[in-house]
């Protein structure tokens, strides 16, 4: 049976440490915008941790919500790309094809979660930072859209490995960088088509909800809102 990759975010567990953001940057060769460009609203974070203040002093509390590409089954970003640079794979991922993208930025406008990013300039890594680039992930040049891919390079590597060893993938055998680096285990990743996976169990819990679910985008990321 084909895989259907999904993620569950447990908002009770997220501490806002942003290790996931750093790991994603490292894994996916995401350029650092710099404080000037970030101040202009061009920070490029495929996963971001949104923070919300609740209540008034002295009962003020800070709540965190990690948001990444929701890999929507009915993605509004997919039909609007005129060159087919984004499409839906058979495994439920919303794929971005870098070499096909001409940069119309239509998909970024259509995405209600604002999880798509545009390369306004050519990325630069001063030496020796260029040595830490991940060779499994292409470096995107200027004018190309990019977004979270659920670390598709890791998915493919694991699938190839399992196929070579003539076995099925085990749940938790590999994870995207953000899930791997999350110490409170707020992020869980797995195959929704496997009824025994952690992701299936959590996604079917009575706490599960979807971000902007009312828009009908059918996201594959399930949020478990805070219990208290």
């Amino acid at each position: 049976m084909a895989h259907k990759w999904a993620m569950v975010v447990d908002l009770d567990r997220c501490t806002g440490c942003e290790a996931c953001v750093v790991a994603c940057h490292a894994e996916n060769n995401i350029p650092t915008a710099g404080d000037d460009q970030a101040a202009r609203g061009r920070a490029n974070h495929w996963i971001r941790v949104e923070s919300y203040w609740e209540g008034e002093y002295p009962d003020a509390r800070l709540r965190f919500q990690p948001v990444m590409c929701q890999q929507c089954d009915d993605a509004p970003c997919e039909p609007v790309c005129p060159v087919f640079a984004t499409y839906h794979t058979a495994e439920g991922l919303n794929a971005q094809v870098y070499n096909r993208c001409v940069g119309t930025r239509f998909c970024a406008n259509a995405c209600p979660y604002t999880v798509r990013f545009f390369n306004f300039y050519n990325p630069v890594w001063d030496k020796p930072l260029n040595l830490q680039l991940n060779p499994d992930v292409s470096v995107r040049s200027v004018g190309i859209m990019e977004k979270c891919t659920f670390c598709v390079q890791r998915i493919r590597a694991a699938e190839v490995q399992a196929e070579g060893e003539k076995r099925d993938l085990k749940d938790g055998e590999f994870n995207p960088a953000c899930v791997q680096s999350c110490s409170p285990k707020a992020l869980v990743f797995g195959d929704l088509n496997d009824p025994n996976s952690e992701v299936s169990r959590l996604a079917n819990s009575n706490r599960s909800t979807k971000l902007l679910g009312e828009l009908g985008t059918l996201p594959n990321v399930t949020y478990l809102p805070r219990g208290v």
Partner: protein
Amino acid sequence: MKAIYTLCPDPDSAQRLVDALRIASLDLGFTDNQIVVVSGEPYEGYEFFDRYAKSYTFPLAAMGGLIGGICGFLLTTLTQKAYPLATGGMPITPAWTNGIIVYELTMLGAILTTLAYLLAAAPLPSWGAHLTDPEIWTGKILVGVTDPPEASAAAIEKKFLQAGASDLRRFPAPAAR
């Protein structure tokens, strides 16, 4: 190509002259097709002008539109089926959105067919020597007979004068002395 012609000051006198020339054409040895009218603007409502009104523009434009629409349909559905990429929950060949492309190409087909028919039927381009006079652009209508037989040239000129023409000219214009 030689011709005898005159410039009529208004369409009514042009009509009279054309009629007279048509009646005389058999006797004087030239055919209806050798009677040429050239003007600097259209004169609808006058017979010498309207006898050329029949054209196939509308049916051809409709046919061109149909061909364009078929091309649009084939372009969208065949390419979408050849390399089916799933996007955003939409079907592989959505009829409504493909319909927009079909509509545009229908219109483009009609436009291009109209243009092609105009060029073919006018006919254009028609570079090369032809009967004309700069005064047609001042509102005069040129009525002439091309390649008149030499024997009846004088009789043709008399016919012109009988029908009310006052300024007979020859084409090509005789060399200035």
